């Protein structure tokens, strides 16, 4: 039961991290507000199932859609203005806070007290299935012409524009996708913990999500998944007291950045072929073997 709980948490975080990886890792923009999208997903799903009695499998896509739509509210003005990336990051920071305050003051969300007694829908098989579906969609998205446009922007946005790529459209699309994933993550979280409160979705949570992507490797999908698992499991395994949890994360992040500045996977993907190639290259002492995203 305990192990199951941890696995569920790992996969929920991985779902949100994968979404954010599509945005941050592939368009190069940092967000410090993605917990807000988790919150939107969590509340949408909770209100839909609890208040309106809508079935979970319908409420979950609704949560994704709602988070995606809310992302347009912040995305359209900030991304259209082609704000420099640091301005965008600050805008997301403010947005995250604003969302939390909003949730604390709306009647339908039950304010700061939050919503309790949510049904346990996030059981292991369900979460696993959704995790697989999200990864499948993410992989399809990234390894397509849509992913290619995002990568081109990350590599050189002027050259990308001169290749006919509309920066605004591609960034907004990636943001929408990442917010929808975060929404799913939040919804699953709500029906796992079975209780939600606005202060569960703070900037600390957002920062952690971005740290997961950076630690996993910007421009990789498997990297952030691995990082999400590590970030849940290591503090659990060490059984660090709650107050030291953030310190443990910090130390972990510093260690990863020192040992592997490009993140766990860098631009690469974890694959069986990659492992075989790695060991073959060890034998022949060749340096470069992996394919680049």
């Amino acid at each position, binding site marked *: 039961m305990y192990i199951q709980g941890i696995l569920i948490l790992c996969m929920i975080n991985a779902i949100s991290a994968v979404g954010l990886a599509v945005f941050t890792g592939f368009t190069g923009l940092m967000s410090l507000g993605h917990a807000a999208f988790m919150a939107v997903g969590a509340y949408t799903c909770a209100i839909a199932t609890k208040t309106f009695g809508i079935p979970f499998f319908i409420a979950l896509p609704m949560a994704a859609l709602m988070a995606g739509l809310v992302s347009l509210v912040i995305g359209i003005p900030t991304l259209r203005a082609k704000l420099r990336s640091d301005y965008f990051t600050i805008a997301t920071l403010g947005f995250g806070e604003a969302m939390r305050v909003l949730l604390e003051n709306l009647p339908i969300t039950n304010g700061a007290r939050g919503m309790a007694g949510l049904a346990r829908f996030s059981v292991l098989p369900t979460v696993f299935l959704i995790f697989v579906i999200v990864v499948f969609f993410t992989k399809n*998205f990234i390894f397509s012409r*849509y992913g290619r446009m995002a990568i081109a922007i990350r590599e*050189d946005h002027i050259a*990308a524009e*001169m*290749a*006919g*790529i509309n*920066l605004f459209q591609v960034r907004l699309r990636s943001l929408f996708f990442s917010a929808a994933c975060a929404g799913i993550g939040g919804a699953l979280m709500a029906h796992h913990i079975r209780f939600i409160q606005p202060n569960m979705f703070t900037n600390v949570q957002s920062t952690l999500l971005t740290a997961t992507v950076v630690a996993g490797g910007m421009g990789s999908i498997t990297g952030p998944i691995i990082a999400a698992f590590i970030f849940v499991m290591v503090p659990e395994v060490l059984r660090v007291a709650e107050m030291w949890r953030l310190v443990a994360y910090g130390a972990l992040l510093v260690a990863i950045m020192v040992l592997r500045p490009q993140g766990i996977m860098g631009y690469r993907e974890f694959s069986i072929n990659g492992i075989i190639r790695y060991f073959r290259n060890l034998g022949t002492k060749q340096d470069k073997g992996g394919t*680049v995203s």
Partner: protein
Amino acid sequence: MSISLEIKNLSKSFGGIVAVEDLTFNIKSGEIMGIIGPNGAGKTTVFNLITGVYQPTRGQVIYKGQDITGRPPDEIVKLGIARTFQNIRLFKNLSALENVVTALDLKNPMYNLASTFFLNWPFIPGKVKRGEKELRQKAMHYLELVGIADYAYKQASAMPYGLQRKLEIARALALEPELLLLDEPAAGMNPEESMELSHLIRDIQQKLNLTVFLIEHHMDLVMEICDHLYVINFGRELAEGNPEEIQANPAVLKAYLGEGRKGA
């Protein structure tokens, strides 16, 4: 011969610096036009104004009779203008082939967003996989066209400098332009290499029926392939004419050729 591009009274200042001042000239369809001038004359700025990277302070850019002044780059590319960059701007971490594939997407959208998500299953051939394969073959064709097919799977930033310039040309061609702007395509090349490049540009221009507008400091290349030349100095027009006329123009000799040729 019809007019491809008309530049009318084009001016651009950056704060107090006047980079380009009142330039007016035409480029005819199917010709190779060269723009030359000393370092800092404003040549790259002209390219940036045509392609929407900068907004002009004054003046107009008219392409095939349509006013495109101030349009964003991605729209201008769609109308049929592609370019290369003086300070190479490749997608560095991608392979040569992927650089070209990225450009091909513009005029060859093989599948839509819905099929991206729902119609791409492992081990099952489908629209997306077929489309991707076709694009790769097409991209290979462009690499062959500029003679760098051997480097298809090499990371762009790991390619020799001269070949990176050719890759930029291949990527620009993959956008299927009618007007191609080349910003110092022979920079960093020795005389033989730049001669070879000039033949390549001629070949491609004829094969793909292009209009070419190029910036170059290698005078042998310029005189060899340009049908028409436009000379600027300190952002202003200095002379215009065919290569023979320009070579004989005293003002040009004084301002430009007289100073000695700049190789870089």
